[in-house]
């Protein structure tokens, strides 16, 4: 007899060994909250959207922007802010649509696909923000070089002593290092968080792909 057939023979008898759950216990279970991966992904994603939006809000309300208002560079900063909000709206809509598509009655492959697709949208939103932070930093830098009286004064002094290049280099290097640390930190955080959360899901997804190559 094949190994699995022996197991099959006993599998039927297995039913009598399970401790039966009463209707009261089932009632109480359905009122408990789920601890599924999807729920955690949903909660974490909402927190991400809120945090990134708050961050952009505080930046737009910060001293730097107030200072920028004095330079009258709205024609540059307004489109930058609009792109940020349009990005948030687009990604949140996509995330919501994909989340709604997650259904436990799909087949396993479809289900894993929808979960990963939902997650991917939030991931793309995070990279959008990092890219956005880099581009807006470059714009801010250009505006400061052209409009900030302190920076202009510093550049003039440097020009007098022929050290303009050094001032530019230091200024740009500080921004680049800051952005690199910022992006690196975010990348590491996501690797750890989602590496932990999605490891099993990816493993099963790969396994299905391997079977159905």
């Amino acid at each position, binding site marked *: 007899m094949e190994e699995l057939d*022996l197991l099959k023979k006993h599998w039927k*008898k297995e039913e009598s060994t*399970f401790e039966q759950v009463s*209707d009261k216990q089932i009632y109480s279970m359905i009122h408990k909250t*789920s601890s599924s991966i999807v729920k955690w992904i949903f909660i974490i994603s909402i927190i991400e959207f809120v945090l990134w939006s708050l961050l952009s809000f505080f930046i737009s309300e910060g001293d730097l922007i107030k200072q920028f208002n004095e330079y009258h560079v709205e024609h540059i900063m307004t489109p930058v802010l609009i792109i940020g909000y349009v990005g948030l709206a687009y990604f949140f809509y996509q995330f919501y649509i994909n989340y709604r598509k997650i259904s436990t009655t799909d087949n396993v492959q479809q*289900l894993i696909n929808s979960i990963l697709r939902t997650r991917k949208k939030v991931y793309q939103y995070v990279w959008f923000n990092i890219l956005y932070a880099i581009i807006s930093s470059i714009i801010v830098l250009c505006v400061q070089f052209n409009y900030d009286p302190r920076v202009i004064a510093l550049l003039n002094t440097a020009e007098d002593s022929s050290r303009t290049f050094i001032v530019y280099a230091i200024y740009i290097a500080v921004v680049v290092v800051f952005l690199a640390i910022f992006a690196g930190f975010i990348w590491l955080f996501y690797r750890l968080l989602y590496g932990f959360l999605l490891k099993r899901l990816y493993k099963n997804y790969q*396994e299905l792909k391997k079977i159905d190559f």
Partner: protein
Amino acid sequence: MNNALEQSFVQQLQENQNIIHKICRLYTSDADEHKDLFQEITIQLWKAFPKFRGESKFSTWAYRVALNTAITLYRKSKRSIATTEYDTTKHFFKSEDYNYEEEEQLKLLYKAVYQLNDIEKALVFMYLEDKNYEEISETLGISEVNARVKMNRIKGKLKKILNP
């Protein structure tokens, strides 16, 4: 959700709970984890229940949601890392049909099945439940031919584990 729906769900689940117990048996390694997974599956079934139209049998619908939960949604708790296996065969044999050799082989078989990955366990589960390859391939989202090939490989893998 209204009371009638709740009542209908609880009644059907109670009648079909052994399907869920069987999935828990394959995907968990101790009684606490079994309860955890059973609860998560129950919650997922309840969430999906309003969309259950009765086109298929409750049991067919339930085993699909239950398998999906075990494979993709369930987050194993920390304690499950320290795998303490329960004796899977202790209830199988009544004193009159006790067969030492068969019991030992069954224990080894269960141990071998536990070593399989989540997808392989799903195939084994459906095989044990006498599901045909059409249904197996539909449930997993793979082709029928590949489901057969994979099943044969699993049989080979189990043979290897049992006869190293």
